[in-house]
């Protein structure tokens, strides 16, 4: 088995000092942390490397289509005032790499440079909270209620953001708690921990629009909500009872919520997986 080697960085990121650091590698993209214009302005670099297993024409078509789709969704959401990272720059066919890539048997790929979002993903915040709750079994009724109301408030804010997203005519396509971030508000040092109990203050920011698209159909919006509901159910079982709070927030932020929520009932009944035929 060969050791994994990430694909080469596209130009101009080959000359960045310090070099971008790899944060995560998904199936589709690699996420790096780098800087933009000044060495102290952090930025997130998402690279969609070319896939050598695909026919070059198909590969170019898909890579270009997807990076542009993601960028269009993000720029629209920024205009509409939804909290998402802003786009700084992008290229769907990086130049100056052909020769080097031909030698290594891989073409460049496309990249998208985005505003850096500080803070933690909601998945981590909730995992820490659940861990903390588990360790503190003998808390009083009042304290437990207080803890629950913090989570409720967070879920309501998530609902607001998702409502705003759908109001703008965009569906996310992969709404999980890993794609929601909690950015500390500028005013205070909010994301601090109190003996392992995480702060839930801050601004909820949606990230990773790799599977997003424009849609005005209740079905697509309902599936977004369903995926999110399942993510809460499977990853954060303790928070599941409060999911209604999220839907409440969604309702407050988005006027078309009534028909979407009705559709959500249907999607729930159907499940994503029906019994297989044949």
């Amino acid at each position, binding site marked *: 088995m*060969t050791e994994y*080697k990430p694909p080469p960085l596209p130009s101009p990121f080959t000359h960045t000092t310090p070099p971008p650091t790899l944060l995560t590698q998904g*199936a589709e993209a690699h996420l790096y942390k780098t800087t933009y214009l000044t060495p102290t302005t952090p930025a997130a670099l998402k690279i969609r490397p070319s*896939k*050598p*297993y*695909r026919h070059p*024409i198909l590969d170019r078509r*898909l890579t270009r289509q997807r990076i542009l789709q993601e960028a269009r969704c993000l720029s629209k959401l920024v205009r509409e005032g939804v909290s998402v990272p802003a786009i700084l720059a992008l290229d769907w066919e990086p130049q100056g790499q052909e020769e080097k890539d031909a030698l290594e048997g891989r073409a460049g790929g496309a990249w998208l440079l985005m505003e850096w979002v500080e803070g933690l993903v909601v998945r981590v915040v909730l995992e820490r909270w659940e861990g903390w709750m588990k360790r503190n079994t003998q808390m009083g009724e009042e304290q437990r209620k207080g803890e629950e109301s913090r989570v409720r408030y967070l879920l309501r804010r998530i609902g607001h953001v998702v409502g705003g997203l759908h109001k703008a005519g965009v569906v996310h396509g992969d709404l999980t708690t890993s794609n929601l971030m909690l950015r500390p508000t500028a005013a205070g040092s909010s994301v601090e921990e109190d003996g392992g109990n995480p702060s839930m203050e801050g601004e909820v920011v949606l990230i990773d629009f790799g599977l997003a698209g424009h849609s005005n159909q209740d079905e697509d919006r309902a599936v977004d909500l369903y995926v999110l509901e399942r993510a809460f159910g499977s990853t954060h079982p303790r928070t599941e009872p409060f999911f209604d709070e999220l839907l409440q927030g969604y309702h407050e932020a988005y006027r078309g919520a009534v028909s979407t929520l009705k559709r959500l009932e249907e999607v729930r009944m159907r499940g994503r997986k029906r019994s297989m035929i044949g």
Partner: protein
Amino acid sequence: MIGIGMEGSANKLGVGIMLHPNDGSPPRVLANVRHTYVSPPGEGFLPKDTARHHRSWVVKLVKKALRDAGVSVKDVDCICYTKGPGMGAPLQSVAVAARMLSLLWGKELVGVNHCVGHIEMGRLITGSTNPVVLYVSGGNTQVIAYSSQRYRIFGETLDIAVGNCLDRFARTLHISNDPAPGYNIEQLAKKGNKLIELPYTVKGMDCSFSGILAAIDGLAASHGLGGQGKDDESNDDDDKPTRADLCFSLQENIFSMLVEITERAMAHVGSKEVLIVGGVGCNERLQDMMGIMARDRGGSIHATDERFCIDNGIMIAQAGMLAYKTGLQTPLKESTCTQRFRTDDVFVKWRD
């Protein structure tokens, strides 16, 4: 322990005999016989004709398997048969035959999930321990990974199976169904080189093939390439695609989709091994593409050849015997079959 496996969920009738040595050494294949119902070009196999084929061949195949294996009836411990999923009539024919043998010989029955059979046989032959499994055949398209006693489906087709898409396009072109339509498409695709744009329909870890089939059928019709007696590699106009180009483009497009969803599942579960099973898994282009993807992730691919990829009896014996050893038996009363039987419905007691 010796088990007989009987498979007939589609147009292949297979009987296999497996030995699981009592000393714990690796299981051995004692016999693997198969007979395929081949329909004429331009036609698919109909359930009633396929069932008739299975009924008229099953006794011959069981006898041949016993002869090949050199075992007698008294050595056999259990009879494993395909409970589903598959076509109703062919499944029933084989279930009836299995019940008959069970009563005649006084042996226990074990009903097996066809998909789990493929997975267990693939694991045995390739020696891969915990891979992400791509199961692709004429009736199924699933990306599967094991987790706490179940083979969980991470992605699957939303409509027709990938093999069904290939088979039906072979019908449009009147390509021979012997030995298999997909095999003949693969050979024709090797002569194509022009990539035609087709819909690319991946949704998360799921995919869809019916729209692609409609699109390529439409292209074949508009270029006058459907039907029989057409030249495979040329067209009266040089700018137009040939039949070979269509096969090439179809394969490139749908296999890219399969590799993409497999890669997503690998990233999701953090696995570096891929196992390809099912009839379409024989396709060398698919194996190549999957190999490149796995290599780039620092992983490896496991695939088998037509003896094990295409439906067979030993895979049913293998999965059935694993279950039988954990105490599972199917009483006569419950020895039914079903067209719908999801991979994740099976409780996998034999793995940690």
